[in-house]
Every structure is written in structure tokens, then in C-alpha cells.
């Protein structure tokens, strides 16, 4: 009898598997004048993985402009002469476990890769603002963390708790998301059934926390400058302009500044 139950359960599972809710979701990621693909792999009851493909980078058309000054007063170069071969840059991977609230990223320091762990506790605030994207009614949700404010448009009509980059925790798929300065913009482009394997080449990588990662990166940078200074009779003056992009102030930095 018990075996029969198990059999039924197995059979049931088989049906469930046949009707998979696994999707490959492609976003376009806009930053400055660059556009690249960011692919999100969603599997039932598994962490989502986002794969940002560097080689897919295409410069977007910007009319009669080579530079602009962004909100932080930093000069951002748009294009200019010469082209960068992005195919040589490493791809970015992000794994988000929304049940355990854990984020893992594959990042490098001078071509040495680490598995970097991170954790963000979101408190999304859903506004009454809605807009239609294709046939979907999207709600605007806002949240802030790490010195930046974010807005995400999600639709409950695609009930997948996932989104681009580190964003998740909304009752529907995030269709568009950006920060207050539009430093990076993600826009949903494609949703397909998932047939491929989920890429996340994290085997044999050392696991470190994000704070450790930055510490290591700073050390590597200092070592680089020190080498520069010892090689040549020069002195290097560094000006820290502050951080641009999506994350600007980290929790541990807040504490040190308070002290």
C-alpha cells in the first residue's frame, strides 16, 4: 500500500515535471551607451541565476555626444574613438536564493575568481502607480538600500518571484527596473521555456563575503599602486570620487563613517 502511494506520488511528480515552470528570461541591460543581454534562469524551487553576457555588448546610438556629466558630477565617456573588445571581459553571474535569502556572485580580482556571498533584506513598497507593458499591468515598487533608491515595475500576471540583478521578493516578475539616476536600466525583452542548462561555473572557487571581496580588491589595488611607485620615481595622488552604479554605500562602510 505504501509503495502504491509512493508510486502515485512519483507519477504525480512526473506530471509536474512535464508541465515545468522553468523559464529563460532575457533582459536588456542598459548602462551609459552600452546595451547587453542579461539572462535570468528560473527553475521551480531552485535559486535563480542571472548571466550577464559581456560579449553581447553593443554600443547604443547616442547622437552628437561623447561625454556627459552624471548626477554625481562624474564625467562619463560615451564611446569616443576606438572600440573596446568586450568579448575578453569575463561574464557576470549572480545566483539568488530567495527562500534562504542568500545571494552568490562570481567576481574576479585581477582575473582570479571568487564566489562572493551577499545578503540583502528588502522592504519593497508597492505604490498605486501602474502602467501597461505589452498586455501586462505593471505595478511600481520602490525600495532603497546601499545608498541608492530603486524602482521596479513588476506584473502579478507573471507570478514568478524573480528579477534582474539582485532584485527579488515581489509578487510577480520584474519587467523593468532601475535606480534613481538610471545608472543601470534593465528591461524585459523575452520569456522562453527553459531547455538549456543553468550556467553557474562556481566549482572550486573560494567562497568569500562581499566585504572580504572589497578588502581584497582594495589590497590588490594598493599593491598595484605601490608597484607603480617603486618602479618609477613618481608619486601617485588618488582621488576617491565616491562610488557610482547601483550600490554606493555598504553597511560596513556606514558603521565606519559613524565612528
Amino acid at each position, binding site marked *: 500500500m505504501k509503495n502504491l502511494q509512493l508510486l502515485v506520488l512519483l507519477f504525480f511528480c512526473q506530471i509536474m515535471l512535464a508541465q515545468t515552470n522553468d523559464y529563460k528570461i532575457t533582459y536588456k541591460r542598459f548602462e551609459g551607451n552600452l546595451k547587453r543581454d542579461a539572462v535570468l534562469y528560473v527553475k521551480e524551487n531552485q535559486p535563480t541565476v542571472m548571466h550577464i553576457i559581456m560579449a553581447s555588448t553593443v554600443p547604443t*546610438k547616442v547622437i552628437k555626444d561623447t561625454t556627459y556629466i552624471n548626477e554625481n558630477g562624474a*564625467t562619463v565617456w560615451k564611446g569616443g574613438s576606438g572600440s573596446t573588445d568586450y568579448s575578453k571581459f569575463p561574464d557576470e553571474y549572480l545566483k539568488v536564493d530567495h527562500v534562504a535569502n542568500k545571494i552568490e556572485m562570481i567576481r574576479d580580482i585581477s582575473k582570479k575568481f571568487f564566489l562572493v556571498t551577499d545578503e540583502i533584506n528588502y522592504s519593497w513598497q508597492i505604490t498605486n502607480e501602474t502602467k501597461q*507593458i505589452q498586455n501586462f499591468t505593471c*505595478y511600481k515598487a520602490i525600495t532603497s538600500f546601499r545608498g541608492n533608491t530603486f524602482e521596479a515595475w513588476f506584473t502579478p500576471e507573471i507570478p514568478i518571484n524573480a528579477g534582474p540583478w539582485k532584485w527579488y521578493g515581489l509578487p*510577480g516578475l520584474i519587467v523593468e527596473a532601475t535606480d534613481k539616476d538610471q545608472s543601470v536600466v534593465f528591461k524585459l525583452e523575452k520569456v522562453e*521555456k527553459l531547455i538549456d542548462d543553468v550556467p553557474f561555473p562556481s566549482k572550486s572557487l573560494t567562497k568569500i563575503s562581499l566585504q572580504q571581496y572589497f578588502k581584497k580588491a582594495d589590497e590588490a589595488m594598493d599593491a598595484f599602486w605601490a608597484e607603480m611607485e617603486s618602479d618609477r620615481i613618481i608619486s601617485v595622488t588618488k582621488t576617491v570620487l565616491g562610488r557610482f552604479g547601483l550600490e554606493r554605500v555598504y553597511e560596513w562602510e556606514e558603521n565606519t563613517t559613524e565612528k
Partner: protein
Amino acid sequence: MPKTLSTLLFILLTTFSLKAQTICKGTVVSNAKEPISNASVLIKDTSDNILQFGFTNAKGAFSINTENEGSFVVEVNKMGFEKQQQSVVITKDKKEYHLTFTLEESNEVLEDLVIEIDNPIQQRGDTLSYGAKTFSTCHEVVVEDLLKNIPGITVEKDGKIKFEDTEIEKVMVDGDDFFNRGYSILTKNMPNKPLDKVQVLRNYSNNKLLKGVEESNKVALNLTVDEAYKDLWFGDISVGYGVVSENRYEVSGNLMNFSKKYKNFLTCGLNNVGIDRVGSLESMFYNNYEVESIGSGGQLYQLMGLHGARASQLKDHRTRINNAEHISLSSIVPVTEKLKIKAVGFLGFDENYAFNNSYSITNVGTTYFENTEKNQFKSHLKSGYVNLLATYDVSKTQMLQVSSVWNQGNTNNYNDLTFNEKNTLEQLQTKNTFFDQKVTYTHKWKGKNVVLLKARYFSNKLPQFYNINDYLMGDLFSFDADAMNNDIKNDKTFAGLEADFKLKQKNNDLIEFQVGYEYNDQSMNTVFKLFNNATSILPDEFQTDSSFTLGDLYAKSGYTWKWNTFKVSGRAEAHQLFNSFTTLQSSKKQNPFYVNPSVNFTWDVTPTHIFNGSYMVNFNNTSFVHVNDTYLLTSSRSFSKGLGRFVLTDYQTGNLGYSIRHYLNRYRFSFNLNYSKQSNALTNRSFIEQNSSLSESVFIKGGDTYGANLSSNFYFRKLKVT
């Protein structure tokens, strides 16, 4: 006492418990009673707003806290299942609600979905955005101070603002313009604190329907106001008074309100400490560009001027002694969605004083003399300005703009000169009345083609009265004069019509074509009088009573060809003129026809290396002062006279240049070759005597000029001392 305390505590606790949240609990299962995990649960109000949300756990259970009361809809969504809703009424009595959802499997699968997306950042190309807070060092008071901190923006002494090398068109507040070219009244008065962003709009078009059609190098600034300052009246007032010094004061105040519906800006100021809080308003009065129109630069110019002594070694603002008052009120009100009205009023008074005392001894060989000079100069200025602008959006592609400007000014200049004990008093009064009416209709079709119908009428009266209690012209007149005066009446009316076509081709080339007719009527009447104790005379040839009318029927066209980074534009203007010059004695007419062609090219070798060249032939009609056949007094001892007939002057110029520059680059290089040939030119012939000068226009054959210009600059960084 403890009793009340406990009661108080009790009440507090009860209110706390009353405020405590209601819990909405439940489970989500499939038809087969299997728990469904990771389903999203939404609590929506009746207008479909999401109030709270949660997810089911591995056992299919959810629990959501809510503070709201009333009737709600609980919605459960899960991929592969039908959406399900249950309504629930939450009251304060019940703290827990239990709901069970049994979801039907859905046959609808999320088919391959493709969304067409556009680049969200692309439009930034023409707009540079600067965070106002980022560029603030907390020492700024007004907008102008903040703008000085922004790279690429320079603010000149008189308040003119330039971005890179281009003077900006206007300074807008949240997209609305108050003062157009007189923006300095805003930037010199508005506090910088309410600003959120400063935006530099490049390739700017004053007429919104021309955006993307015309080739524009214009730049405008837009100031966005922080949300916290929207929809409320705010202002500032600053008062300064010199306690130790003599009676010196400075008062300025602003009151403003920027809301989505209407915008108001009131500013006033008075000071006698030499501060200029108004800046140059001439362009706002006479040539505002907010409405595309014709006849720019057509207003009258003063025939006589009177300037006092200036302390050349000291900066102007250090020696300025003044008494300035101004008040300005402006409002922008959208009457309906389509009709927007702007009203700007300005009233200003300014008194400027200057004095200069000098004493000099000359002792060379046997020559010895002393000179003492005392000069006092006073200038009184009154100026009033009213501008009404109505913009009516007939439809998305049609716009009607009506602008009226009325401006009146009064200037009195006094000059009191004592030279070696001999006193001379000079006085010049100038009154200026300017009334301007513009109507422009813009129609855009197929998104690329625009026609502008422009009509303008203005009248300008500029009478001047000059007198001097001395006669300084030696033996120019055979009359023993003690004093003289000159009474000038100078009037002009202008009327014009133009149809202006701008057709953008599929390959982004622009065809422009204008046809129009302009009519100018200028009349001049001067009475020049010499006095002595007994009698007065009016010398012949020094009295003017003439009128000059000019009709100009013209057609202009231009075309720009583009190949990648190479651009060639050709332009031609054909004019048929109807000149007529009438005095009491004679009447002259001439109807010349001429064509002015020009061609120029630019090649952006790289974005920072630019190669350009141009060639043009230019014919010019004679202006009033060159046609007039009598002597006109221009200062205390000089006269000028025109040709007495019409001539057409012409010249041609060519230019080739190469430049390397970018505002962030420290190296700049430019090389220019110029050639110009003047075939027929007008110049002046002056008879200068010890005490007087008579100047006459003469017509000459000009010559050729060649020029080469090379400049190479490298800007060093500030040297650092370690």
C-alpha cells in the same frame, strides 16, 4: 496616583492592541490537495491597488499582516495555475482570518514572449544633467553662484551665461521660461537652495515643434525645483545696512511659487552699494527669441551718447556709486490645457554717479603748465517693460503664439566738467518707447516638415534732447555762440510677413525656404540751435527733416548635404528692395535687386578635430545715417553726414580652418586662413580741426585682405607642492 498611572497604562495598552495588526492566514493547495509553495498572495483594495503581499511556504501556508480595515480581495497567483480571488471584509473585532485556496491547473502556458524595447538612456544625448546639491559648496546664495561651479558654464560680469562658447538662450524653471534673454534677472535673484537639477539642453529649439527638424546649435538651461519646494509660496529677503559707513543699504527680496499649474516669480531690490542685480536686459526688451519672428535687430539706435569719466585702473564695480531699485513680477498660467499665458512686468530705476578729480603738471624745458580737472557725471535711468505671451496649442502639430511687448525708458545724463576753473555743463535726455506685436503660427506635418507663418509689427520712438552751456567748436560757425542744443526726433515703424518652410528629408537633410516682405519707415527730425545772450541761429545743412522707407521683398533658401561626418551647406538670399528717401527739397528712389550666396562645410575628422571652410558674397543696402544728406550732431563737437544717395556695398570673404578642441581636453589648437575682398565699401572722411570734427560718408573701392592665424594652447594643471 498609581491608580491613574495604571489606568493610563491600561488605555495605552488597549489602544496599542486596537492598532495591532490583523493577520490573514491560509493555505494554498492544488486540486489534488497538494500544497503549493512559492505562490504569491496579494491583498488588494477595491480599486486594484496592492496593499500587502506574501508568499506561501513549502507547506502551502501563508500569513500576512495588515493594518487596513474594510473590504478587500485576496488574490493568489502561481505559475501554471489559474488566478484565484476571494473577497474578505476585515473589521477591527476579528484579528485573524483564515482562507483556503484550491487552485485549478491552467492550460495557458506563457508562450514565447517578446517585448519591443527602446533604449531608455538614448535621449540623454542633448541634455546634460547636473545635481544642484553636488555642485553646491554651501556658500552660494543665488542661482548664478551655483552655475559658476558647473564645468562648461561661465557667467560673465554682466550676468550673461555661456555654455562652452555659446551664449544660452534662456533659463527655464521646470520647463517654463520667464525672461528669455533677460534671464539674468532670474539667475541674479532666485535663491539656489530650492534647485534639484541644472540641465543644459543642447541643440535646443525655442519652438517645440521645430525640435528635431531645424539644425540648432542653441543651448538653454532648465532648472528643476526640488519636490519639497513645489506647490508652495516661498521666498527670501535680505537686508544690509552700513552702520559705520555713510548711508549705505542693500535690500532684496524674492517670492515665488512653482507648481504644476502655474508659476510665479516676484523679485525686488534696492541698493546703493553698487550691486547690479538686474544685468543686461536689452535683449529681452528688443529681441526676445521666444517666438520665432522677423525683423530682429531692427530697433533704433541712439544718435547721441554721453558718457562720464571712468576710473580706468579700477574695476567698474569698485567705483560704481548708485541708487538702484527694481521690481519684477511674472506669472505663467495655463488657462486651459491648450492655452498658456505668460505675463512679465519689470520696473527699474537706477542712478549712477561718478566723479573724477585730477591735477597734472607739465614741465618740459621752458614749457610749464598746470591742469586741474574736476568731472562729475550723473545718469538717471527709468525703465518699464511689460510682456504678454499667449501660446495656444491648436493641436499636437499646430501652435499659435501671440506676443506683445511694451517698453518705455527714460535716461537723463548730466556731465559737469570744470577744467582749469572753467565750467561746462552738458545734459542729454533720451526717451525710448517701443511697442512690439508678434504673431507666429507653426504647423508641422508628417513629423518632419514645418511651416512657420510669422507676422510682426513694431514701432520705436527715440527722441533725444541735448544741451550744453558752452560752445566748443571754434570757428566752425561764424557766430559768437555761448551755448547750443540739439532736439532730435527719431521714429521707426516696422511691419513684416514671412512664410518659413523647413522640410527634413528622409536622409535627414534639411531644405529651408523663406519668402517674405518687410517694410521699414524711419523718420528723423533734428533742430540744431546755437545761442548767445542776444539771439539764436539755426545753421543750414545742420538741420534734418527726412524720411527713409525701405521695402524688402525677399526669398531665402538653404540646403545642407551630409555624408557621415562631412556637411556642406549652401545658402542664397535674393532681395528686391524699394528704397525711398524724402526730404523737404528732394525725393530719391532706387529699387536694387541682388543675390547673396554663401557656402560652407564642416568635416568632423574625429569628434574633437574639426575642419571647416566657408565662402560668401554679401551685398548690403545703405542705412539711414549713410543716406542722410545733412550733418547730424553726434557729440559736443562732432558731426556726421551721409552720402545723400543710395549705394549698394559688397564684399566677399573666404575662410578655411582646422581646430582641435574639446572642453575636457587640455590641448587646443586652431589654424585659420582668411581672405576678404571689398569691392565697394563705405567709409568716413573726417575734417578734424582743433575744436571740431565733421565726418562724411564716402564711397570707395576697397582692397583685398589676407590673413592667417595659428593658435596652440596647452593648459597646465595646477602645480602641486609636496
